[in-house]
């Protein structure tokens, strides 16, 4: 690097530093006049506890902040087209519940703001206090916090203790490794005839979050750390996929569609189900009075440590208006407060980003005691890693191409290494 370009770079850096500092000062300390902000939220798009709890939190916030009116806008998380269409139509998009895999696109295209750029540093630090450091990292991209983990969860192995007993297995010793999943699965199939194991790794609607965690647990990555090269056809990943393929070939791993799996588990026909803990509510509803539902952490590859990652969403601020930014930040603070996470965890069924409220009887203490199923989920919070979003305008197509290849390799009888390699080449061509 020659001297001149270094100088230029330094000036540029300084300039951005200055401008962000200026912006940070521009956001008012309080909302001193009436303002309306929109909150794009996918929980509002469905009926049930998620929507009810969200509405409750919003109205509590408005009661405490009479100057702020929050307009909740429902959108389908499966496609971000509502947000994109509204931005294209010039509609105000202020605060968004962004799925983690959309984070890159939200930053580069939807104008998501880094919190460091708009919120005074001391205020930010004060709010982050008590939050799980791993949880905070989830919303960090290129070194800045664009999103604050909001409704998120980790993969857990749900299992049917009654089927375990019927197969002569000890329900207190659920499988902790993939080898054990296979061994126990074979016994379950043989002794009970029940469906042994299924997972939300592949298939329509599965996205790639769980796959990322499986590959990482075998010390692989689906994408390089600089997020330029796809690596899901590298040996570590091929090995992980081959393991899944072996589970299928041995008859342990059932290929069911997502809803089918969920209902099979809920109805008591499936012994083990690796899936996001967010499905806990639906599974509890199905198992009550029928069988004993338990949960465990994600299985590991031998003695390699489990490296689970999260599913779910973060909160991102998109507005450029300082007053609205302040209002959005206030709402964000409220939703991610001790009280906010108490509601989110106990009423919707996600994880608390604030680990200090878990044992606090004023918040989640009693609830956690009464809900042992959440334990493996909390345990994994300590080793949680981010769900990497794919970069560029074709990020969704990249995910689809990758996951199609994985599905083909696991269930389609195709050669694992070759299929993944072909898919990786195709997907790499779509990278920016």
């Amino acid at each position, binding site marked *: 690097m020659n001297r001149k370009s270094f100088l230029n770079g330094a000036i540029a850096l300084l300039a951005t530093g200055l401008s962000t500092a200026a912006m940070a000062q521009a956001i008012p300390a309080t909302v001193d006049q009436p303002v309306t902000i929109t909150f794009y939220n996918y929980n509002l*798009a*469905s*009926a*049930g506890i*998620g*929507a*009810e709890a969200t509405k409750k939190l919003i109205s509590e916030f408005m009661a405490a902040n009479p100057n702020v009116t929050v307009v909740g*806008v*429902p959108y*389908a*998380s*499966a496609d971000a*087209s*509502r947000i994109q*269409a*509204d931005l*294209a*139509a*010039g*509609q105000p998009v202020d605060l968004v519940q962004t799925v983690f895999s959309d984070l890159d696109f939200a930053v580069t295209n939807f104008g998501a703001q880094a919190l460091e750029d708009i919120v005074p540093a001391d205020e930010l630090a004060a709010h982050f206090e008590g939050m799980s450091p791993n949880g905070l990292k989830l919303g960090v991209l290129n070194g800045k916090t664009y999103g604050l983990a909001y409704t998120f969860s980790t993969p857990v192995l749900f299992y049917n203790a009654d089927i375990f007993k019927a197969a002569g297995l000890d329900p207190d010793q659920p499988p902790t490794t993939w080898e054990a999943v296979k061994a126990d699965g074979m016994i379950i199939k043989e002794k009970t005839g029940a469906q042994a194991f299924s997972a939300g790794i592949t298939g329509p*609607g599965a996205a790639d979050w769980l796959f990322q965690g499986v590959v990482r647990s075998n010390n692989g990555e689906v994408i390089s750390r600089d997020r330029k090269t796809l690596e899901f056809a590298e040996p570590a990943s091929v090995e992980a996929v081959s393991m899944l393929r072996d589970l299928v070939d041995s008859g342990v791993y059932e290929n069911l569609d997502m*809803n089918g799996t*969920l*209902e099979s588990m*809920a*109805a008591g026909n499936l012994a083990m189900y690796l899936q996001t803990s*967010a*499905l806990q*509510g*639906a*599974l509890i*509803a*199905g198992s*009550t*009075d*029928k069988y004993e539902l338990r949960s465990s952490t994600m299985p590991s590859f031998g003695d390699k440590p489990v490296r689970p990652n999260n599913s779910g969403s973060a909160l991102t601020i998109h507005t450029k208006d300082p007053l609205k930014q302040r209002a959005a930040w206030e709402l964000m603070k409220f939703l991610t407060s001790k009280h906010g996470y108490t509601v989110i965890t106990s009423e919707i*069924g996600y994880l608390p980003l604030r680990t200090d409220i878990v044992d606090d009887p004023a918040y989640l203490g009693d609830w956690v005691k009464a809900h042992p199923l959440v334990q493996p989920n909390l345990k994994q919070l300590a080793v949680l890693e981010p769900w990497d979003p794919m970069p560029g305008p074709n990020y969704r197509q990249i995910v689809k191409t990758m996951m199609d290849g994985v599905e083909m390799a696991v269930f389609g009888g195709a050669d694992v290494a070759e299929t993944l390699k072909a898919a990786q080449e195709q997907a790499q061509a779509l990278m920016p």
Partner: protein
Amino acid sequence: MTIEAVARPIGLAKPRLRKKTAENTGLNSAAGHVVMVLLSLVCLLPVYWMVATSLRPANATFETSLWPTSMSLDNYVYALNSIPIVRMLINTVVISSVVTVVQLFTGLLAAYAFARWRFRFDKLVYTAIALTWLVPFQVVMIPNYLLVAKMGLLDSVVALILPHFASALAVMLLAQSMRGFPKEVIEAARMDGARSWRILWEVLVPNLRGTIASLAILIFISTWNEYFWPLLLSRTPENSVIQIGIQMFMTSEGTAWGPLMAASTMASLPILIIYVVLQRQVVQSFMKSGIR
């Protein structure tokens, strides 16, 4: 007078058909009945299952007994409490009715133009209208959304109606049946000095009742069942339609089967009742319509 005379030959066929049925007896028709009964069961079973499931209590949702062992209205209470179903139903009725009337109106006008006149580019225009049938809705969805936004109509019932002001189906079906209409009758009316506007409404329309009625039913049903456009537009449940309400019970965190079936039953009920009441007319109107 002339018109009735034209319509009569079709009616005349009736008595003769009745006579023929007497010949049709024996094994052949018994086997036919068995097939038809089976087919009817296949058609009705899912509808029955929807209603039966909606009436089961929450912990019996996965039961497979044909008749619910115990009944409960909990699912209905839950569904009614979590989304404004009544409001959504009213919206859907209003939208479907308006769309039906407007689409029939524009369809009648356009079809009349094709049936009555030869004009420059008439074939081309007709083909262009027919081709809109092949344009998948998803293609125009986003541009339409932007247009609606520009008009300031986001989150309004009007936006759900506007793009359906005309349809290729209505124009084509009506044009086809108008062409089949005896030209002498139109000519006669014209001789009597009737203007084109009056010929359409006083001569053609009364005689196309069958087609119009069956087309109305088709338009109403398809608008009632529309899903993707309202899904893109809906912001507040109060301004949305019943299909969106139904869809709200199917989430990525699992489907709330009981409430979903309750909401589905409530969504299907109005249309089923209308159908049962008007069933004879519906079938008859299709029999007499030019849709063939």
